């Protein structure tokens, strides 16, 4: 599993063998394949791009092409032990509703997202007065898929408002895990493990 992105690797590490998992926005299926091959996890995926679904199917993965904004509603309650949403929350039409769906179809959820309060973002916005374009968020404001930028503090506030429990959280800068102190300043992205 060493080839996985660090946030995905954290998620993979915390999913027990044999679990049933839904990877929402599973991309090319690398996390699903790692979970299946590494620990016999029964992984299913949901992905918008037909080309990526094709890739997943060719890896023997079970992936449905669809739009998480609508199609999560079609899964039964508690169908999965874990629902995973990695780097997708900020692209959702309604991140709050998507969070509810994740915790409806999964007993627990893993959510990862880029932290807009990362110090370089703050500095860039302060100094230039323009929406930051960074290696981690490289697309200009007018064409980015990230329509709901958020910070770690925003996310924690949403969890509190929804009464969602944090089972664990991990923070990353320059693709390396960092401590939780001052994470809202120092972390480029975050992973949360959540439950109801």
């Amino acid at each position: 599993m060493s080839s996985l992105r660090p946030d995905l690797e954290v998620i993979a590490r915390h999913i027990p063998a044999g679990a049933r998992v839904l990877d929402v926005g599973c991309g090319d299926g690398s996390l699903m394949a790692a979970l299946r091959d590494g620990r016999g996890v029964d992984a299913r995926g949901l992905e918008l791009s037909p080309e990526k679904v094709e890739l997943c199917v060719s890896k023997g993965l079970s992936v449905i092409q669809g739009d998480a904004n609508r199609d999560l509603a079609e899964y039964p309650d508690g169908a999965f032990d874990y629902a995973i949403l990695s780097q997708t929350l900020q692209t959702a039409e309604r991140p709050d509703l998507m969070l509810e769906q994740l915790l409806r179809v999964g007993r627990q959820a893993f959510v990862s997202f880029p932290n807009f309060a990362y110090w370089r973002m703050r500095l860039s916005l302060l100094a230039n007065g323009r929406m930051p374009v960074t290696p981690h968020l490289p697309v200009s404001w007018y064409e980015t898929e990230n329509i709901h930028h958020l910070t770690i503090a925003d996310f924690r506030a949403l969890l509190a408002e929804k009464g969602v429990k944090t089972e664990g959280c991990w923070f990353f800068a320059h693709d390396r895990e960092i401590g939780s102190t001052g994470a809202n300043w120092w972390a480029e992205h975050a992973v949360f493990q959540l439950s109801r």
Partner: protein
Amino acid sequence: MATILTSTSAKLTLPHALPLDSGQALEGVEIAYETYGDLSAGKDNAILIFHALTMDQYVANPHPITGKPGWWSQSVGPGLTIDTDRFHVICANVIGSCMGSTGPASLAPDGQPFGMRFPVITIRDMVRAQVALLDALGIECLHAVIGGSMGGMQALSFAANFGERAQRVLAIATTARHSAQNIAFHEVGRQAIMADPNWQGGAYYATGRAPDAGLAVARMAAHITYLSEAGLTDKFGRRLQDRASKSFGFDADFQVESYLRHQGISFTNRFDANSYLYITRAMDYFDLAEEHGGMLADAFAGTKARFCLISYDTDWLYPTAESRNIVHALNAVAAPVSFVELSAPYGHDSFLLDVPAQDRVIKGFLE
């Protein structure tokens, strides 16, 4: 592709009467089928391909009447998507059809053609007949069942009724039930056939007159549903057929008219009108949920097979929503299912045409 693949054309007479959904049973049912590629010693590399309404067992080799390439010859063959060097591919003519399997043109026990005395059959009856073929061939479990359109209905029916006999189920451009619109188009076709005086209540076989005009109209109407508006516009537009201006008459002025007439007439050379009535009826009766207490998910409860569904964005006959409906039912019973909507301009017929993405998905799914 002009190459002729090594294949076996065979005909099996079922040793037992075939029970039908109507409550009747058919004695002495014959099933004509083709096979490609070797069956492994363990009999575990077989793929059963189900054909669509007007197709037949000639999936990869040229059609014996028209001489045209097999209907899926670009995808079935040595080294192709469905690789006959690896897989033993079986394709059987459905019962009710007219290419060698028992249908309304076959002789009834009294030595006369069945005609309308042939019992009304269902998709499940077609599948039962092919399961009987598998029994005769000693094939317990298939590597995969594959079908598009009506073939997809058979694949789904196979999964619902004989699910333990296939490891993979691939259903393309299909539906779990015929909609009012689907039934309506079929009824237009049937009425065209039955309104033809040459139909003679279906007893036309010995009269030297067949309802070709009616069957041609049925085919023309159906053919429109297999294409997309954009596809028709692209192919024909309002272009005129071999003339500089409109004739102010009712000849085939437009290319699209000429094309449809040709489609209709050439169809009558290879298809029996009564078969068209019976097979369209079977499709109209198809409602997989109804067979399982109204819950489509129950049709697939306990299935161990992996599923893959493919739809096309320009298919308005069995639109993507129909495939999603099936996917949701499979999700509800936690069946491993993949689904993708592919983009192609050709409408429902896309699944028969050169769509590289479809080949990639099928190839991946069969691994």
